[in-house]
């Protein structure tokens, strides 16, 4: 085919390699800064089946780097807008658009339908979900992530290699690292990293040596510095995730977004218990019904004290410990757990106001 003549001309690809590309199925999670360039080059390269999952719509601020979209796509669903543009680029491949967020209810099913997963997401929750679902379904993940002028690239779960958790075992404890929408990003950076992700996908499919497995490639767009770090596999962690999934019938129990609740909504719940995971003595001191104080460090030894049949509102001072506690409770199969937005200070203020209102 004329379309792929420049690929076929390469000894390392040839018709045989091109056939491998057209038999491949690749899922790109996130059609944003990283996903757009990855999708463009994968579609152009003739990946036979290309999946796109993204639940967002195209916004004007995206156009500075997400060049798959144009002004005419503003306000439209990214997954469908990307599909339209890519079908024009290459009508000979089949493209599936999923206008939804990757979640623990669709990840396993979706991953099973593809050979390779490209991580182009913009948040830690989805990154850990991708990692764990890929471990369970035994799919390699081509990982890319960016921060302002810097990018990270790697291939995880490739031929029994290390996973993302071997690099960063748990999501950041100390609050989220801000993402591009909050702090800005040099537009061309995701294009560089996303194109490199497409390159790793092609290397995997074509069977090239030197796939970036067990290595973290770090690039700085400002200084042009490149560092490649080697990652050791953490067998113990990987076995843990896989066996957990087996026990729970593939219901992935990984780091899903923690559900948060406002003070107003929390106070309206009739059968809720408030669990304060601050250490005793921390201020403000709270006085309300259905209140328990169990500090974060004590909670795993005191699970029997928590009523599993009520809504569980967890609070701390700023929201970091309460989220950790919610995760811990959920890991122990407690349901209906929420982290209280604004924590103890917000709750204390609301209770004071309520008291004043009652006096009036």
């Amino acid at each position, binding site marked *: 085919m004329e379309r792929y003549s420049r690929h076929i001309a390469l000894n390392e690809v040839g018709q045989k390699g091109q056939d491998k590309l057209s038999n491949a199925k690749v899922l790109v999670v996130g059609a944003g800064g990283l996903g757009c360039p990855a999708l463009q080059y994968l579609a152009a390269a003739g990946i036979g089946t290309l999946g796109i999952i993204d639940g967002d719509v195209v916004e004007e601020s995206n156009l500075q780097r997400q060049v798959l979209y144009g002004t005419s796509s503003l306000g439209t669903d990214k997954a469908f807008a990307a599909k339209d543009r890519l079908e024009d680029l290459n009508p000979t491949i089949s493209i599936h658009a999923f206008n939804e967020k990757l979640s623990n209810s669709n990840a396993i099913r979706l991953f099973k339908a593809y050979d390779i997963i490209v991580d182009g997401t*913009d948040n830690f929750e989805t990154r850990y979900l991708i990692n764990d679902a890929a471990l369970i379904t035994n799919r390699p993940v081509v990982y890319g992530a*960016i921060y302002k002028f810097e990018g990270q690239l790697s291939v995880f779960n490739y031929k029994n290699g290390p996973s993302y958790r071997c690099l960063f075992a748990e999501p950041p404890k*100390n609050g989220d690292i801000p993402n591009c929408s909050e702090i800005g990003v040099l537009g061309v950076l995701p294009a560089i990293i996303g194109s490199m992700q497409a390159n790793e996908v092609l290397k995997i499919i074509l069977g090239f040596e030197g796939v970036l497995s067990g290595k973290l490639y770090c690039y700085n767009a400002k200084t042009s510095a490149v560092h490649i770090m080697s990652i*050791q596999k953490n067998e113990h962690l990987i076995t843990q995730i896989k066996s957990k999934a087996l026990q729970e019938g593939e219901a992935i129990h990984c780091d899903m977004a923690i559900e948060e609740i406002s003070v107003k909504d929390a106070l309206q719940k009739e059968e809720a218990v408030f669990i304060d995971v601050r250490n005793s003595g921390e201020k403000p001191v709270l006085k309300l019904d259905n209140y328990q104080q169990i500090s974060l460090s004590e909670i795993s030894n005191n699970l029997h004290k928590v009523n599993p049949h009520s809504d569980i509102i967890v609070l701390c001072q700023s929201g970091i410990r309460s989220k950790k506690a919610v995760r811990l409770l959920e890991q122990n199969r407690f349901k209906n757990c929420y982290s209280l937005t604004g924590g103890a200070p917000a709750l204390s203020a609301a209770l004071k106001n309520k008291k004043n209102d009652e006096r009036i």
Partner: protein
Amino acid sequence: MELNIKYFGILAELTGCNEEQLSFSSGKVSDVLDVILKKYPPLKNKDFQIAQNKKLIGIETAVDGTEIALLPPFSGG
């Protein structure tokens, strides 16, 4: 010995440099980390992994290299 410490992402912003030299006698990576955290207290609240001579390692590893890199996770896409 002279160690070359490299900072990535938000850590480079907090320290104000991409890399610097640090004199260190001997000990574990955690000892180097103590020195760094004392010099840059804001780093205490940050998550990062450490690589010695381009190999990711635990903090209990003995310092036997010349380069220590502090790598935070990135979430952006």
